C-alpha cells in the first residue's frame, strides 16, 4: 500500500513541481557542443581561395567503410604561381549514407583539409533518395565557403 502511494506521489510531485524537459525541436535546436561530429566536410582556404585538400588519398585509404572517392589534379593556381599547392582536389565524393562518422579521416589528414561539420545543418540530412546522400565537391565545400563552420576537433 505504501509502495503504490509512493509511486503516485512521485508522479504527482513531478506534475506539480518540475518543468517538462521537452525541446520543441524543429523550431528550437538543442545546443550542440563545439566538438560535435556530424559528417565530414572539406575546408575552404580563404587566403588562397581554394580548398586545403590536395587529394592525397590519405582519408580515402583510412576510411573504414570506404565511403570516399578522391580524384586529384594538378593545381592550375600553382602553375600561375598563386598557390604553393602543387596538386589539388579535382573531384571528391562522400557517401553520407555509408559514412559512420568515426573521425578517422580528420585524424589522418595532413593538411587539415577535412573536418567534421559541427552545425545543425550537418545533422538535418533527410532525403527522399539514397543517391542524394552522395555529396560532391561543391556540396562538401559549401558550408566552409559560407563561413558557417568552425571545426571543433582537429587531430
Amino acid at each position, binding site marked *: *500500500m505504501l509502495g503504490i502511494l509512493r*509511486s503516485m506521489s512521485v508522479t504527482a510531485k513531478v506534475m506539480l513541481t518540475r518543468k*517538462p524537459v521537452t525541446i520543441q525541436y524543429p523550431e528550437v535546436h538543442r545546443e550542440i557542443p563545439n566538438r560535435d561530429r556530424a559528417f565530414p566536410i572539406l575546408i575552404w582556404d580563404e587566403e588562397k581561395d581554394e580548398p586545403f585538400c590536395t587529394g592525397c588519398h590519405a582519408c580515402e585509404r583510412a576510411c573504414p567503410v570506404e565511403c570516399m572517392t578522391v580524384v586529384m589534379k594538378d593545381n592550375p593556381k600553382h602553375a600561375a604561381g598563386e598557390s604553393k599547392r602543387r596538386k589539388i582536389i579535382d573531384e571528391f565524393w562522400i557517401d553520407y549514407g555509408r559514412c559512420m562518422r568515426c573521425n578517422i579521416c580528420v585524424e589522418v589528414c595532413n593538411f587539415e583539409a577535412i573536418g567534421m561539420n559541427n552545425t545543425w545543418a550537418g545533422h538535418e540530412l533527410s532525403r527522399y533518395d539514397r543517391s542524394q546522400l552522395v555529396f560532391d565537391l561543391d556540396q562538401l565545400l559549401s558550408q566552409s565557403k559560407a563561413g558557417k563552420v568552425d571545426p571543433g576537433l582537429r587531430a
Partner: protein
Amino acid sequence: MTMLLSAPAIDMPGALASVLGLVAITLVMTVGVAYATWYERKIIARMQLRLGPTRVGPFGLLQPIADMLKLLVKEDLRPATADPIAFELAVFAIFIPSFLAFVAVPFTADWLISPLPLSLLYLLAISGLSFIGFLMAGWGSDNKYALLGGMRAAAQLISYEIPLILAMVGVVMVTASADVYQIILFQDRIPLIVWQPLGFIIFLTASIAEVERPPFDIPTGESEVAGGVFIEYSGIRWSMFQLSSYVNMYVFALLGAFVFLGGWEWPFGRDIGWGYQLLLTVSKMALFIFFYLWIRASFPRMRVDQLMSYAWKVLIPFALLQIFLNGLFIVYDAPGVVLAASSWAAAGGLMYLAFHVVRRGEPRKPLQMISVRATAVAARSAS
C-alpha cells in the same frame, strides 16, 4: 433532456424525444471523448516531464480533431482469414452498449433521457455487455494475440462485475433505492463516500478493471499482447473501439460521481440552477478521470492470475463484508456514525491486505553488499 424536448411547446412523443436525446448525447460524447484524450495526454505528459500535444492549435487543443480526421481517412483493413461477420459486428457490439448507458444518466436534475426506476442496475447491466464484442473481435480477428486479449477481457469483465455489483448492492441497501436519481437525492447533505468508503474503494478498483485501464489493462497490454483485441483493427473501426472504451470510462466516472460523490446534489446543488449542477457533475467526473489517468501513469500492469485472485480473494470478500455491515446497520437501526466508522475501518483493512494476497511469500532478504577496498594507491593521492 427529454423533459426539455417534450415540453408543451415542442410536443413530441416520448420515444422520439428519447431517440433524439440519445443522438444528441452520442454527438456530444464523441467530441467529449476526443477531448478526454487531449486531457489524458496533457496530464500524463506533465507527469512524465513532457509537454503533450502542442502543435495543433493553442495548447494542442485541436489535436483531437486532427486525430479524428486522420483516423477517419485511414484505410479500414480486414485480414483475409478473419471471420467477416464477427469481425465487423464486434465493433458495434462494444459501441452500442457503451452509448446506451447514457439513457439513464441524469446529468442534472432535469437533464435525463429516460427516468428508469432501476437505473443503477441498468447501468451496470448495460456496461457489462461489452465483453461480447471483445470476444467476437478476439475470435473473429483470427489472430492469437487478439484471441488471448479477448479471453482476458471477457474473464476480467465478468470477474470484476461481481465486486462492482456487490459494492452497489451496499449502496442500494443504505439508500433503499436502485435509482441513480434517488441515490443522488439521498446525498443532499453528506455524500455517500463518507458512509461507504469501503464500497467506494471497491467500486473504484473494479471500475478501473471494467473500463480496462491500467493497471488492469491486460486485455490490451501492449507489452504483452500488443494491443490485444484491437490488433487487427485499423482506421474507423479502431477509433470506434477506442471511442467506446473512453465512453465507458465516462460512464463509470459519472456513476462514481453520482453514487459516491453526490452528483449534482452535493453541495447545495438542488436549488441552484442547472448550470451549477452541470458544473458539479462535470468536475466530479473530471476528478474521477484524473484519478484514472494518475493511476495509469504510476502503476505497472498486473498479471492475469494476480488480477483474478485480486478480484476473487480480496475485492469480493470485502464487498460482502460491506453488505454485511450495512445489513447489521439496517437491522439494528444503528446510528450512521457506527456505519461510517466500521466501513472506514474495513477500508483500512482492505488497503492493508490488498497486496499481501497477491504477493505471497515471506519478507525478502535485502541484497548482500560485498565491499571492495582499494589495493593500489592512486599516484596523485600518494604524492
